[in-house]
């Protein structure tokens, strides 16, 4: 019983991190129909920001998180203007953006790899190797902090989307781009800002990930499939769906990992993806599939 509780707690804290990693992705897809395959490499960019701030200036990765987020916000603004803004009118827009973000992922992967080499790195704040012990329960602090901060950030994101003027505009654009534009929403500006917010979330997630997982540039390919399976499971572009999917899958993965070995815990995500495609292609919370 306490075994199960232990695994459950690990699954939930990890689920929070995954939810944060995937939330930017789902936000960007929801508003702009961009499947950002470069999202995981952006998370790794954020992780490098935290890594270097920690190793050069001893800045705690949690304090480095806003820095990483702001830095990546800027990257997002520039990238959107350079690459995606002019594609918005393209007929095969969604397909096109997948290829474009794939190319961006290759560029960033190669760039980071050339700059920092593909050695495994991890930031090591004092709490990274610590653990809280309550009775039989053993909770690694790194994972606990990352999970809690992630959950707090997602909460802030939900509040922002639900209760601010800009949040209304973003949600309106998600629901119906044309109608939002007709009602006076500056759709182009909202797209730009949402993209940058999504990338900033990747940066923030990266700072947290930097002390939870070891990372190197080429690792993002693995994360693409993991994060995408969360997004597909929840229904593309549905934030709530993604969050529920992240918690559900990481809890299942934690159980699979404990009883069948770590290799199989990663595969859980991909098998879940195939099951969803097989049984309910639109995902748990998704609308019926559009033919585009």
């Amino acid at each position: 019983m306490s075994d199960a509780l232990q695994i459950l707690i690990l699954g939930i804290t990890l689920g929070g991190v995954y939810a944060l990693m995937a939330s930017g992705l789902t936000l960007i897809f929801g508003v702009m129909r961009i499947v950002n395959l470069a999202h995981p490499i952006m998370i790794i960019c954020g992780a490098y920001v935290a890594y270097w701030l920690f190793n050069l200036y001893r800045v705690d990765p949690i304090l480095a998180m806003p820095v990483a987020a702001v830095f990546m916000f800027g990257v997002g603004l520039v990238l959107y203007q350079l690459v995606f803004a002019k594609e918005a009118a393209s007929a095969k827009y969604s397909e096109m953006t997948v290829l474009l973000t794939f190319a961006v992922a290759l560029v960033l992967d190669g760039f980071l790899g050339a700059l920092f080499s593909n050695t495994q790195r991890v930031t090591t704040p004092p709490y990274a190797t610590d653990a809280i012990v309550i009775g039989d329960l053993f909770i690694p602090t790194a994972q606990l902090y990352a999970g809690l901060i992630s959950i707090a950030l997602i909460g802030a994101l939900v509040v922002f989307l639900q209760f601010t003027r800009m949040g209304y505009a973003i949600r309106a654009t998600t629901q119906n781009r044309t109608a939002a534009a007709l009602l006076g929403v500056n759709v182009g500006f909202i797209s730009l800002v949402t993209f940058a917010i999504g990338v900033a979330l990747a940066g923030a997630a990266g700072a947290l990930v930097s002390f939870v997982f070891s990372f190197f540039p080429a690792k993002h390919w693995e994360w693409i499939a993991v994060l995408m399976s969360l997004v597909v499971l929840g229904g593309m572009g549905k934030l709530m769906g993604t969050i529920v999917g992240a918690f559900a899958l990481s809890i299942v993965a934690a159980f699979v990992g404990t009883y069948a070995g770590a290799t199989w815990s990663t595969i859980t995500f991909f098998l879940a993806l195939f099951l969803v495609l097989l049984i309910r292609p639109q995902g748990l919370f998704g609308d019926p599939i559009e033919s585009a």
Partner: protein
Amino acid sequence: MKTAGRSAAGAGDVAAVVAARREMNQRLASTRREGRSWGFAIGCLLVLAALPLLQFAGNFNYVLHMALYTFMYIAMASAWNIVGGYTGYISLGHNVFFGIGGYFSGMILASAGISTLITAPAAGAVAAVFGFLVGLVTLRVRGPSFIISSIALLMIARILFDNWDYVGGSNGLSVPLSTLPVEWAKLPYFYAMLVIAVLSIAASYRIKHSKFGLGLRALSQDEVKAESAGINTKLYKVAAFAISAFFVGMAGAVWGEYLTYIRPNIFLIILVAANMVLMCILGGKGTVTGPIVGAILLIAFNEFFVAYFGASELNILGTGVIMLLALMFFPLGIVGTLARQGRLPRFLDWD
């Protein structure tokens, strides 16, 4: 008065339309091709088939190697084009079939000693069956979801092969070295790859000019309309996926024996799939000759890049930059752009 005016304008319109149509017909007639340039194609083939004669003049193993490598990518890019170009389903995990072909024939070679040159068609068939089964699941969704599922497929394959001890795990499989003298060692694989490339191009050409290919192109535009026009879209796209997997699997089988080792981190890395996609985009997605042009250009570029900057992460960076620029400025690719401008040379026009 009003009606008269309108009918006069109508007559004028009709005359204008007739004139425009005549002009259009004339333009079409003037640009119409007199058949295909079969002479060029056969000439190319003869030159390539005679390439190993260079070995009598000295050691040209490097040339043969590059040619062989190019044949392989031509075969794979052409095969990818059947799914990604004609059908419009972008697969970013297509090298799964490359791996399956390589491992299937590699295992037979390692255990029974039968050359992959003999078992390659069987490896292709295994890949095709696998492609058919996977296609039944993943081709249910279009667009982004399909692309994601193709990446997930590659990741699953990578994890499975990395941990499957029977086929050597992440160390992979070693197959016996060729016993031929070094100057002729590349020959069987050279011709095998040439044959696979030719078959793949031929299949791509035949499909493009068949009812099947027309159906594929119709469903790439609008699946619902294609279905209501009487096309069995589900069967069509899964069949296209299986055919594509067949050629990629064959190429994998021969490449495995040629390399003499078959490893997940050679066969199952996303860069191989990225290359196939990029070659098709660069040359022109959905055209017969596009993948060939793209493969030759990209391999030449990569070779120069490696020669000047060394094989490093910069290579990935370069691939990404080319892909980004090609997508942003030449989304139709070289062949596609030239064809749209009506300046496509005849020897490249097989569409």
